[in-house]
């Protein structure tokens, strides 16, 4: 090598000792069949089925609310989930859900490592689907290698075009399903088909088509290895008891070809069960070699287990050379100690207990929340008004909330101020002269309320006043405290 090429190389790699950037190693996993593959197909069907079809599920709420089971109504600030309706100020339920989700993730991790990544993560599920499409069009990697030797340019181009078209269709449907969660699904579908949908819908379909196509079609395992924070967090949360996909090197090593191992065994020398067929590596969607031990790239999907079990069956060796196990147990077997599988550990019990507690709190608040609400703001300026007859008046702004889907009448009453007279500005008292406010279905109403009293108040009085909004029909009441100020 002359100096010129050396310099050019050094320039390109940036350092004398190794490249700072590396080209993508394309991973083209083989198809496997087995228990974990079946579970993954089932979960893929369930999760994608829910995602794509849920917007079309109907849920009758009467004439004053949408009839879509799951709907994020951004324009009106409402979130509907079957029988639950969430207002913006109840957004803390989402916080609770996120806490629950985190705890479930931690619990899954304590039980079996990154099974979320391997089975349920959207990135994994869509990548799985995209890889299945790839194999369907272009064939299994071995098939494909053979085919590429003979295939004409036109055929290769046709296959590539079909694959990308199918990918884009799935991606487009993914974006399409997303926007259906934000508007009445059947109506929006018709609008979109006629080209009359709102611009924002097309923009979001475009964005999600792009991200799905890029992340599931092209980025794939790189999302897990380079972009996702969970592998790093997970590594800090795990312990030696977590069941991870483990190559049982106590049984597998020393690895060697079937014949070589048989020969070794005949001589009474140790021979491992691993025939070094590399099927576990070929099946891995992230391209790792599980025989190197637990590693960042492994998403715990178990496809290498299926691949290995298939080989073991073929050569009449017991299955389970790779299995959900712990390194601790592998070492124990190596040293002839008993293995330990402990599901009930401090962390699993704690996570489960926290899930129950958080879930319990959320359910209780949901079950006991009121369908009416009241909040009060005292006028800041003036704090009180002296009237010409010497009485004192305070003014308040009340916000009444009616979370029921029918109109309701609320009587406004106060407590804590002697001889209080209540007047609602613009309000018409009912037949009994009570101040009454009507609040529309699923709406709020802001009322200016004046409270005055003839009673002599102590100097610089600040009385505790409580407002009640009493539903005239049901008698259910929302209350809010404030102050009544005097001179």
């Amino acid at each position, binding site marked *: 090598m002359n100096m010129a090429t050396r310099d050019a190389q050094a320039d390109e790699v940036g350092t004398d000792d190794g490249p*700072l950037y590396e080209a993508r190693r394309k991973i083209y996993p083989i198809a496997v069949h087995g228990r974990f593959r079946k579970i993954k197909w089932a979960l893929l069907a369930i999760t994608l089925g829910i995602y794509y079809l849920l917007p079309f599920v109907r849920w009758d709420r009467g004439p004053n609310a949408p009839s879509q089971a799951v709907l994020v109504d951004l324009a009106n600030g409402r979130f509907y989930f079957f029988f639950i309706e969430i207002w913006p100020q109840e957004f803390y339920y989402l916080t609770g859900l996120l806490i629950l989700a985190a705890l479930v993730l931690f619990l899954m991790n304590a039980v079996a490592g990154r099974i979320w990544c391997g089975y349920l993560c959207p990135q994994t599920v869509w990548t799985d689907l995209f890889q299945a499409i790839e194999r369907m069009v272009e064939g299994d990697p071995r098939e494909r290698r053979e085919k590429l030797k003979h295939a004409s340019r036109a055929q290769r181009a046709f296959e590539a075009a079909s694959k990308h078209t199918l990918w884009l269709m799935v991606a487009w449907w993914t974006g399409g399903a997303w926007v259906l969660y934000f508007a009445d699904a059947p109506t929006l579908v018709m609008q979109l088909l006629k080209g009359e949908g709102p611009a924002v819908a097309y923009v979001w379909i475009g964005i999600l088509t792009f991200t799905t196509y890029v992340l599931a079609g092209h980025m794939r395992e790189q999302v897990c290895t380079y972009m996702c924070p969970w592998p790093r967090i997970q590594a800090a949360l795990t312990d030696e008891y977590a069941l991870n996909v483990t190559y049982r090197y106590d049984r597998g090593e020393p690895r060697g070809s079937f014949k070589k191992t048989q020969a070794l065994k005949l001589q009474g020398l140790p021979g491992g069960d691993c025939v070094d067929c590399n099927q576990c590596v070929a099946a891995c969607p992230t391209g790792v070699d599980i025989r190197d031990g637990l590693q960042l790239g492994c998403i715990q999907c178990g496809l290498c287990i299926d691949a290995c079990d298939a080989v073991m069956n073929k050569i009449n060796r017991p299955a389970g050379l790779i299995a959900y196990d712990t390194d601790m147990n592998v070492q124990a077997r190596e040293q002839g100690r008993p293995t330990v599988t402990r599901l009930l550990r401090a962390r699993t019990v704690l996570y489960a207990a926290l899930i129950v507690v958080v879930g319990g709190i959320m359910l209780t608040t949901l079950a006991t929340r009121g369908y009416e609400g009241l909040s009060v703001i005292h006028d800041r300026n003036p704090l009180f008004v002296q009237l010409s007859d010497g009485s004192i008046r305070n003014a308040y702004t009340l916000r009444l909330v009616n979370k029921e889907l029918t109109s309701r009448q609320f009587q406004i009453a106060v407590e804590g101020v002697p001889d209080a007279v209540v007047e609602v500005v613009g309000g018409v008292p009912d037949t009994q002269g009570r101040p009454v406010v009507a609040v529309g279905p699923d709406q709020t109403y802001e009322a200016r309320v004046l409270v005055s009293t003839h009673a002599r108040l102590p100097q610089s009085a600040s009385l505790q006043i409580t407002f009640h909004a009493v539903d005239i029909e049901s008698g259910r009441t929302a209350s809010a405290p404030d102050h009544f100020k005097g001179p």
Partner: protein
Amino acid sequence: MAEIHASETHKPEVDAVTGVTTTGHEWDGIKELNHPLPRWWLWTFYACIVWAVGYWVVYPAWPLVSSYTSGVLGWNSREAIQASMADLRAQRAEFAGKLDAASLEEIEQNPQLLAFARAQGRAAFGDNCAPCHGAGGGGAKGYPNLNDDDWLWGGSLEQIQQTILHGARSTDAAGHMGDMPAFGRDGILTHPQIVAVADYVRSIAGLEQVADAQLEEGKEIFAANCAACHGPDGKGNQELGAPNLTDGIWLYSPDKPTIIQAVANGRGAIMPAWQGRLDDSTIKALTVYVHTLGGGQ
């Protein structure tokens, strides 16, 4: 010779523990493992640079001596805010139209219109009226409290609208007229007479008296000089803006020196006319807002 050298230096060192190559960098014996970044990250970086350059071309970016590069889209924030304001007006057009069409009484009877008018009125009040009358119309010395039920020029919807439109003692010929004369300065009353009438005014308001109050004399002076505007019983006259002197509400102060000051030097606070400065629908909204502060009659 050169080839051997090259192959030696380019053989990356492998870390024994991790089996990973090192970058060859070493600090006090600590070596850095080499985990190369994916190359597409580099491309993303370049793409960001290209994006930034595109941004300069499309949007305003670089300051020049007396202007700036405006970008091929011609976007600017002033036009953006004007477009937003136009959107807002269009959004409000439906209710704004109803507000213009409805009478003041109709507005107060319709909860939706009332809420709309009050919101608009509150904003206009904050911009135009709050400097004198206070943020919530609470008033100050010399500036009436608009929340109470005592009105200088009347507290009905029409009277409030009239006062806002034309003002009081303003430059508008249709505005309210009527001054408190300077009885002392103009030599109409002597100082002892003024003191006597001040004591009398305090007495009809039910306030504490000094021991030597000349109430009888005060009453006579009041009947001769003050009753024309304030009424024989001191209840005031809204036609002339003469305040009711018998209630608990005082524009200045009920203490004796302040009353003497008013009688001696007169009063004549000015409320400007807002017609022409504010459009009619804003004044309508302001009228409803002030009327619904609590004191409206």
